[in-house]
């Protein structure tokens, strides 16, 4: 247990200093979401809408920051380790790559939460958002499930990245579609219905919906419970799939020699 915790802390410490504390991730956590929020607010202004729903337009930016930060740090890690030649040292150690990736993704998500914090702060201080009727415990639980869903998706993507360097293109491409399909900055109902069907497979769509309902305090407990259940269930599916993929990846990269190639 001590070993496990020490490994966790060391991984997260190195991750924080090597990858997260850079202008690059600050851009992902803060600049990009701020730009998208600004586009939303300015479009509202251009359309003569004086009161856009801040839960989407501003706080949604925080979700976007968490997601973009996760996609890029989790995947950039593997790529950077591949490039720096440390990936094969990690794989060649007795510690499973899965564990290393898991701790790193955890840190990425915790760091990404600062994006959420910034968005909420901006909503309150700049736009006078009041949080009237907020169901605090439900928001916290929803947020925890959101984090868990993001983490499961993060380790899944990192495994894909370890599989092959070509998948990098694919993973880069995922950032926007998932922001788009999961409705980070608008309700899912804005999407054409066929798109709404695609997003059901992403756990974060459900926890996000629960969190928003809880922020407004409008949802019945039964509804929240079902949203939480769905989110947790799909997250676990992602987790189990990553676990399975991890074993495959470990064999695959040792067959192809992808481990050391740039």
């Amino acid at each position, binding site marked *: 247990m001590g070993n496990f915790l020490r490994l966790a802390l060391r991984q997260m410490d190195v991750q924080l200093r090597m990858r997260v504390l850079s202008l690059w991730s600050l851009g992902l956590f803060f600049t990009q979401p701020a730009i998208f929020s600004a586009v939303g607010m300015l479009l509202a202004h251009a359309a003569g809408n004086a009161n856009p729903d801040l839960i989407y337009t501003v706080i949604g930016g925080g979700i976007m920051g968490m997601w973009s930060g996760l996609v890029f740090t989790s995947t950039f890690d593997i790529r950077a380790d591949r490039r720096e030649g440390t990936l094969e040292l990690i794989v060649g150690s007795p510690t499973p790559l899965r564990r290393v990736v898991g701790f790193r993704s955890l840190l990425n998500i915790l760091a990404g939460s600062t994006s959420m914090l910034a968005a909420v702060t901006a909503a309150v201080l700049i736009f006078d958002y009041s949080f009237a009727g907020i169901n605090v415990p439900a928001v916290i639980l929803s947020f925890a499930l959101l984090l868990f869903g993001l983490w499961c998706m993060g380790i899944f993507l990192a495994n894909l990245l370890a599989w092959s360097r070509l998948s990098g293109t694919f993973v880069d491409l995922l950032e926007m579609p998932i922001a788009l399909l999961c409705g980070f900055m608008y309700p899912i109902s804005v999407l054409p219905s066929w798109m709404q069907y695609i997003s059901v497979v992403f756990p974060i769509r459900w926890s996000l919906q629960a969190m928003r309902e809880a922020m407004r305090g409008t949802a019945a407990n039964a509804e929240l419970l079902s949203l939480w259940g769905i989110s947790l269930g799909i997250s676990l599916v992602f987790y189990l799939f990553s676990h399975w993929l991890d074993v495959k990846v470990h064999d695959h990269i040792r067959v192809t020699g992808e481990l*050391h190639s740039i």
Partner: protein
Amino acid sequence: MPDQKAISTNQMQKTFKTRQGFWRRTTRVTEAVRDVTFEVNKGELFGLLGPNGAGKTTSVKMLSTLLLPTSGTITILGLDILRDTTEVRKRIGFTFGGARGLYGRLTAVENLRYFAELYAMEPALTRKRIPELLELVNLLDRGNDKVETYSSGMQQRLHLARALLHDPELIFLDEPTVGIDPVGARELRATIKELKARGKTILLTTHYMAEADELCDRIAIINKGRIIAMDTPAGMKSGMTSESVINLRTSNENLTALKAILSPIDGKATILCKENTVQSEVSIRTAHPSRVIEVISPWLNTDLIQTMEMRSQTLEDVYVAIIQNEEANG
């Protein structure tokens, strides 16, 4: 009776498939290592020599569990690398040449701590080992500097310290002295000798024949994925022991004339000519040096021969001869 073999491979093979092309993807199959069988005893320092792309690094990566062999078996310290991967990893250490494989924005101590954690080392042990290792590789005073400020020699030495962290029984060193200045390389060789004296088994790959000659108990020469010679350094040299090497330099214009002069010793010597921009070098390997001297001595004070040098055969000569012989016979 415990297994005395540190490494044992049987018909180890590795085939890579690479895909190329923009529109039409073609698959190219590269046989990086074919049919390699050898054993390394515990406590032995074994050298793997060969030209670039011969399959040295691929072999080392298979032996250190980073690549799966396409076929054949590999046993490391009596453990099967496929079945007991984690156990093997706990007991081996490895470095790959070059500046890669370290976190530049962290200090040496931080890098070592990070890897110590990956090897599940107890903190007390880590605290004791890190200064010891930094001292062994002569980096103690720079331990708290960021690795990106290190010279390539220092990084190479830090690689060695990293590989030794968990006190492995078997160490793979892939071109450990590449890119290091002569003083640094000598220090590193001294460190490697010390490790051997402590009873470690070491597998070393290198391009430097003098290094292999100095360090290795046994060497194998690998070319195009196959082992083409395996012996002790002395044994390799004794295979052609009666031979000497005579090197001549001449101007490019006079090369043809010089070749003509050398024609009487055809068949008694192997003559290699290398034309450079200004001068040409003629290298004569022969078992009858006195006959060669006899032939060339009348010309020693002419323009035909600018310099002459004679020495006994080195491991490098043997290596070059073996590789060239291999090339010539396909």
